[in-house]
């Protein structure tokens, strides 16, 4: 369960948003510059909202009233960046392993990584560097890396943007599949109507930082 109510003062407008979802896919849909990525950054702890609160499974991640702001590294959220942000100086294996090494009680093993890569159909790429991968492969590796830490929330920033049509359609289905398997809330940002309609259990339309009631799924 994820509930957040945040306000954030940006350069051109104020962001204001109140959302509550279960283990669903929430799609933030809106034009470029409407504050979508800012919302994800606030949820991940990479940016501090001006006011409000963020609660994830009864754990308070941020609260301006109670002066709580859990740092990003302790929030246990997976974040899929728009350009994937795969560490270019590490192999795929080490990229996925990166988040596992911090766990002292249960250090990640090579077997975990391979299993995860298998799930995304990229285990044969384990020893390649990100520069040697195609867009779709990078995407899958980035997903594997984000999910390796067993997050309680997955944030996806324009995950399908840079891909060609075929890869896009297959990855869309894959995201659905992963969501069913992991059973955690997903917050996905997109400016593409079709993707929003396909993926969203809940769709909110964001424009200039304001939430608009979503158009009914039938119109999408």
């Amino acid at each position, binding site marked *: 369960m994820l509930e957040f109510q945040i306000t954030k003062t940006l350069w051109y407008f104020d962001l204001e948003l109140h959302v509550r979802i279960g283990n669903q896919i929430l799609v933030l849909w809106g034009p470029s510059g409407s504050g979508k990525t800012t919302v994800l950054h606030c949820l*991940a*702890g*990479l940016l501090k909202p001006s006011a409000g609160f963020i609660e994830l499974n009864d754990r308070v991640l941020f609260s301006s009233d109670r002066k709580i702001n859990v*740092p*990003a*590294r*302790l*929030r*246990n*959220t*997976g*974040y899929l*960046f728009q*350009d994937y*942000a795969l*560490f*270019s*100086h590490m192999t795929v294996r080490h990229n996925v392993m*990166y*988040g596992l090494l*911090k*766990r002292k009680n249960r250090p990640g093993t090579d077997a975990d990584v391979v299993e995860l890569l298998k799930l995304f159909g990229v285990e044969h790429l384990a020893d390649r*560097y990100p*520069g*040697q991968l195609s867009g779709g492969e990078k995407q899958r590796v980035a997903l594997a*890396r*984000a999910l390796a*830490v067993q997050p309680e929330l997955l944030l996806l920033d324009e995950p399908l943007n840079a891909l060609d049509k075929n890869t896009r359609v297959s990855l869309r289905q894959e995201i659905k599949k992963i969501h069913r398997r992991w059973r955690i809330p997903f917050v996905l940002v997109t400016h593409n109507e079709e993707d929003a309609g396909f993926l969203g259990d809940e769709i909110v339309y964001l424009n200039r930082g304001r939430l608009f009631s979503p158009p009914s799924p039938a119109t999408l």
Partner: protein
Amino acid sequence: MFTWWAAVLASVVVAFPLMYQSAKAAFRSVDVNFEKAARTLGASEVRIFFTITVPLAWPGILAGLVLTFARALGEFGATLMVAGNIPGQTQTVPLAIYFAVESGDNTTAGVLVAVITVFSFAVIFWVNRWAKRRGNNSE
């Protein structure tokens, strides 16, 4: 003053701005998204610095080191001022060349010039080779 430490200090002072500029540019060139990604993966700031920032900035830092090294190798004025020219103690190669020429000993000067030239080329060759190998790895 007039010890080999003074010569070191003189070289450091004149070469430092080169290192500072290169290192600053190198650290700036690291994509902040890498650091953000590492943060969401649970890494501490110290771990991010040593496992993400430094390795990615390393080629630039190395370029700075080479520049700095070259600058320090040819350092003359400040060294002469603060360290002097005591053979076996504070005499650097550029000073030795200068005083050899002054006293008409062109043979010694020529040998020293040859030595320092070969040495410089060797260092640059090695650095280039290293950088190339590293570049091939990450592509």
